[in-house]
C-alpha cells in the first residue's frame, strides 16, 4: 500500500514539475507576478512529494517489504539498520530517486532563501530547475520505477552488495549527489540569466554561494569515495582514474573554475559570458557523469544495472539539456554586455589563467575517460586508458596552476606588477624549499620528485598563510592592531586560505604516498613476520569469524617497531550470507605520518597465508587535505557578504507585477 502511495506521489511530483516548468516561465514573460510566484509554491510542493516518495521507499527497506522488487533485490532482513537505510540508494532506482530528491531540495532552497532575487529571475530559475526535475522524474516513472511489486514476494531478499556495506559508502552518495546535483542551481541561474539577457555583479553574488555549497559537498563526496576505495576495496590505492571517479572529478574541476570566475564577474563585471558557459558546462558534466555511471556503458561497482533503454533515456535528457542550453548560449551570449578592462598581469588575468588550466585539465580527464568508449563505438577496438595517461597529461597541466596559486591573491585588480608579488612571497618560497631540504636531510631519501612535491605542498600552505598575514599587515603595524585586523578579515579570506592550504596538504599526501609507498607480498605461517618500513608485521594466527550477516575467517596481526608493540590489527575474509559473496576487510593502523595496511590473502600450497603488508606514508594527509578544503568552502559560505541581503540589484528594472 505504501509502495503504491510512493509511486502515486512520484507521478504527482511529475505533474507538479511540469507546472513548475511552464507557469513561472510564462509568468515571467508576461510580467505576471502571481504566475511567477507559482514557482515558489511548486518548488516546495515538489520537494514535499519527492520526499514522501523517498520516505515510502525508505519504509519499504526498513520493514524489509520484499514484495517490492527493489527491496527484494537489494536488501535482507538480517542487514544492520544503517545498511537498510543506505540500501535505499545502493541500487539504480533508489539512487535516481535520491538524485531527484536532492534536486528538489535545492529547488526548494532557492524558493525559500531566494527572496532577495528579482522576481522574474527567481521565476525563471525555478522554472529551469523544474524542467530538470521533470526530465528525471519522467525517467523514474517510465523506466526506473523503484516501487515495482514482485509477486509472489520472496521470504528473504538478496542482500545489498557486501562491499557497499560500509559506513563511508553509506554517506558517500548523498554528499556526492549534493555536489553533483547542486550544480544544477548554477546551471539554472545561467539559463535564467540568458533568458533575461542580463548578467551583473549581483547575479554573480547570488550564484556563488550555491556553487560554493556544491563544490564543498563534491569535495567531501569525492574524498569519501576515495577513502572508501582505499580501505574497503583493499587494493591499497586512493585514486584509480577509474571512469566513475573521473565522472565526479570533471564537474569538480569545472566547479572550481566557476567559483573563481564568478569572483571576477562580481568584483569587476568581466568574464560574464565565460562564467555563464562554465555554469552550463559544470552541470553538463554532472549529467555526463550520471549518464556514464547510470547507463551501464561502463562496467564498474557503480553500474548497478545494464539496461540499454535506460542509458538511452538518460542520453536523451543529457542531449536536451546540454544542447538546449548551449544553443541558448550561442543565441544570447553575444548580446551580454561585457565590462571591466584588465591587463594580462592582474588578478583577473590570474583567474583567467586558473580557469584555462582547470579547463585544460578537465579536457585531459574527459578525453582519457571517453576516448576508449568512442574508439570502441567507432572501430570496435578495445583499449584501456589508465593512470599513466592521466599522470602524463593531468599532472603537467595542473602543476603550473598549483605553483601559481599563492601568487593569485597577491595580484591587484585591473593591473598588477610582478615585483611586489615576489617581494611579498619570497620568504614563503624560501621557507618551502628549506623545509623540503630539511626533510631530505632527515629522511635521506629521494627521488627529487618527492622533495619537489613537499616543497610544492609547503609553498601552497605557506602561501595561503602569507595572504592572511599580509592582509592583516603583520610586521608593519603593531601586533595588537594586526590581530584585530586579522579577526576583522572577512570569513571568505579564511575560507580561501583554508581551501588553498588544504590543497597543499593534499598534494603532499598524494605525492609522498605515490612515491614512498612500501609494499611486501609474502607467504606467512602463524608466528612468521615481515618487515615493512621499519615496522615488523607478525601473523599471529587465524580464527573463524561470525558477523551479523556474514561468516568467514579472520587473521590476527601484531605490529611492532624495535620490539615495542604498536598495535594489533585484524584482517578479515568475510563471506556474506545471502549471496555467498566474499569480501576482504583490511587491517589498518592509521597514523599521522603513515598507515600500516595489512591484507589477509588466500592459503598457499604449504598452508601459509599470502599476506600483503603495505606502509602508506602520509595517507591521512589526503583526507585531511580534502576535509580542510571542504571546511574552507563552508567557512566562505558563512561570509556576511554572501549571507546577508547584500545582493540588491542597484536600480534594477524590476518587472512590474500585473495588477488586475
Amino acid at each position, binding site marked *: 500500500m505504501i509502495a503504491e502511495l510512493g509511486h502515486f506521489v512520484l507521478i504527482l511530483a511529475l505533474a507538479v514539475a511540469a507546472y513548475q516548468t511552464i507557469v513561472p516561465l510564462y509568468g515571467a514573460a508576461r510580467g505576471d507576478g502571481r504566475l511567477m510566484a507559482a514557482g515558489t509554491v511548486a518548488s516546495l510542493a515538489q520537494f514535499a512529494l519527492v520526499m514522501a516518495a523517498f520516505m515510502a521507499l525508505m519504509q519499504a527497506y526498513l520493514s524489509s517489504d520484499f514484495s517490492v522488487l527493489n527491496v527484494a533485490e537489494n536488501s535482507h532482513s538480517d542487514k544492520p539498520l544503517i545498511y537498510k537505510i543506505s540500501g535505499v540508494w545502493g541500487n539504480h532506482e533508489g539512487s535516481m530517486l535520491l538524485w531527484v530528491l536532492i534536486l528538489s531540495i535545492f529547488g526548494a532552497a532557492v524558493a525559500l532563501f531566494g527572496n532577495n532575487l528579482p522576481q522574474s529571475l527567481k521565476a525563471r530559475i525555478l522554472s529551469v530547475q523544474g524542467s530538470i526535475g521533470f526530465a528525471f522524474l519522467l525517467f523514474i516513472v517510465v523506466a526506473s520505477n523503484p516501487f515495482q511489486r514482485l509477486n509472489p514476494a520472496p521470504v528473504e531478499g538478496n542482500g545489498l552488495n557486501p562491499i557497499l556495506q560500509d559506513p563511508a559508502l553509506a554517506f558517500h552518495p548523498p554528499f556526492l549527489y549534493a555536489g553533483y546535483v547542486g550544480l544544477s542551481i548554477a546551471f539554472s541561474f545561467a539559463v535564467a540569466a540568458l533568458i533575461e539577457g542580463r548578467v551583473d555583479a549581483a547575479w554573480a553574488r547570488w550564484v556563488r554561494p550555491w556553487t560554493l555549497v556544491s563544490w564543498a559537498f563534491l569535495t567531501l563526496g569525492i574524498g569519501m569515495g576515495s577513502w572508501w576505495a582505499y580501505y574497503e576495496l583493499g587494493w591499497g590505492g586512493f585514486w584509480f582514474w577509474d571512469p566513475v571517479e573521473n565522472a565526479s572529478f570533471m564537474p569538480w574541476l569545472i566547479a572550481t573554475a566557476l567559483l573563481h570566475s564568478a569572483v571576477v564577474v562580481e568584483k569587476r563585471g568581466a568574464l560574464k559570458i565565460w562564467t555563464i558557459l562554465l555554469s552550463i558546462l559544470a552541470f553538463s558534466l554532472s549529467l555526463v557523469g550520471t549518464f556514464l555511471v547510470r547507463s551501464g556503458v561502463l562496467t564498474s561497482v557503480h553500474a548497478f544495472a545494464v539496461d540499454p533503454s535506460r542509458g538511452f533515456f538518460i542520453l536523451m535528457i543529457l542531449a536536451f539539456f546540454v544542447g538546449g542550453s548551449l544553443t541558448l548560449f550561442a543565441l544570447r551570449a553575444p548580446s551580454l554586455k561585457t565590462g571591466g*578592462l584588465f591587463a594580462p598581469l592582474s588578478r583577473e588575468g590570474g583567474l583567467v589563467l586558473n580557469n584555462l588550466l582547470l579547463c585544460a585539465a578537465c579536457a*585531459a580527464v574527459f578525453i582519457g575517460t571517453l576516448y576508449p568508449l568512442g574508439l570502441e563505438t567507432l572501430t570496435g577496438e*578495445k583499449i584501456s586508458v589508465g593512470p599513466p595517461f592521466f599522470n602524463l597529461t593531468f599532472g603537467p*597541466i595542473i602543476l603550473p596552476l598549483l605553483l601559481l596559486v599563492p601568487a593569485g591573491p597577491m595580484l591587484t585588480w585591473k593591473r598588477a606588477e610582478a615585483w611586489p608579488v615576489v617581494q611579498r612571497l619570497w620568504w614563503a618560497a624560501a621557507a618551502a624549499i628549506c623545509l623540503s631540504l630539511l626533510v631530505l636531510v632527515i629522511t635521506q631519501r629521494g627521488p627529487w620528485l618527492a622533495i619537489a612535491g613537499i616543497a610544492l605542498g609547503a609553498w601552497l600552505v605557506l602561501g595561503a598563510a602569507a595572504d592572511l598575514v599580509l592582509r592583516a599587515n603583520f610586521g608593519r603595524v603593531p601586533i595588537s592592531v594586526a590581530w584585530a585586523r586579522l579577526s576583522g578579515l572577512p570569513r571568505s579570506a579564511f575560507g580561501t586560505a583554508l581551501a588553498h592550504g588544504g590543497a597543499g596538504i593534499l598534494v603532499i599526501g598524494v605525492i609522498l604516498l605515490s612515491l614512498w609507498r612500501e609494499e611486501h*607480498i609474502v607467504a606467512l605461517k602463524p608466528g612468521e613476520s615481515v618487515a615493512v618500513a621499519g615496522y615488523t608485521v607478525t601473523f599471529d594466527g587465524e580464527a573463524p569469524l561470525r558477523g551479523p550477516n556474514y561468516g568467514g575467517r579472520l587473521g590476527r596481526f601484531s605490529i611492532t617497531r624495535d620490539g615495542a608493540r604498536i598495535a594489533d590489527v585484524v584482517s578479515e575474509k568475510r563471506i556474506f550470507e545471502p549471496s555467498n559473496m566474499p569480501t576482504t576487510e583490511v587491517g589498518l593502523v592509521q597514523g599521522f605520518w603513515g598507515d600500516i595496511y595489512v591484507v589477509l590473502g*588466500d592459503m598457499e600450497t604449504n598452508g601459509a597465508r599470502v599476506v600483503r603488508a603495505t606502509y602508506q606514508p602520509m595517507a591521512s594527509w589526503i583526507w585531511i587535505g580534502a576535509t580542510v578544503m571542504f571546511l574552507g568552502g563552508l567557512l566562505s559560505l558563512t561570509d556576511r557578504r554572501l549571507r546577508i541581503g547584500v545582493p540588491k540589484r542597484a536600480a534594477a528594472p524590476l518587472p512590474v507585477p500585473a495588477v488586475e
Partner: protein
Amino acid sequence: MTRKQTRTAFILASLAILGLAAGLILYAIRDTIVFFYTPSEVTEKMVQPGTRLRLGGLVEKGSFKPAEGTIYSFRITDTAKALPVTYKGQLPDLFREGQGVVAEGVLQADGSFTADTVLAKHDENYMPKDVADRLKEKGLWQHMEQQGGQPQ
C-alpha cells in the same frame, strides 16, 4: 591596453595552453594506452613478446593452482585458445574458476603472460563486459554462461 588587445592576448594565451594540453594528450594517448585482447587475438594479431596488454577471458576450469609462495598460476581462456598466466600478489575476492577475469601485464617470449594486476568484477555472475562482447563476437557466448547467455 585596449579591449581588442586584451581580447587578443586572452585568445592567444588560451590557444597556447589548449594547444599544449592537446599535444600532451595526443602524445600520451599514443604512448600509454593498453590494448585489450582475448587469448585468440594474442595469437591472431601476433602480439610481440614484451608488449603490455590486457588479457581478458575466463579462468579455465581446473587450471588454477594455489599459490607456490606468493605466485599464482592459472590459465585464461576464451574457449578457443588459452594462455598460461602467472601472477604475484593477492587475487581479487571474486576470482574463481569459470569466472570472467581481466589481467594486465606483459606477454613473455615463451607465450605465457605475467600479470601485475588481476581484476574480477564485484558481482557474482559477472563476466567483464569486454570479455562478454568478445565472446559474443566469436559466437562463443552460449558455452560460457548457461543462465544469461544469448547466442548471437
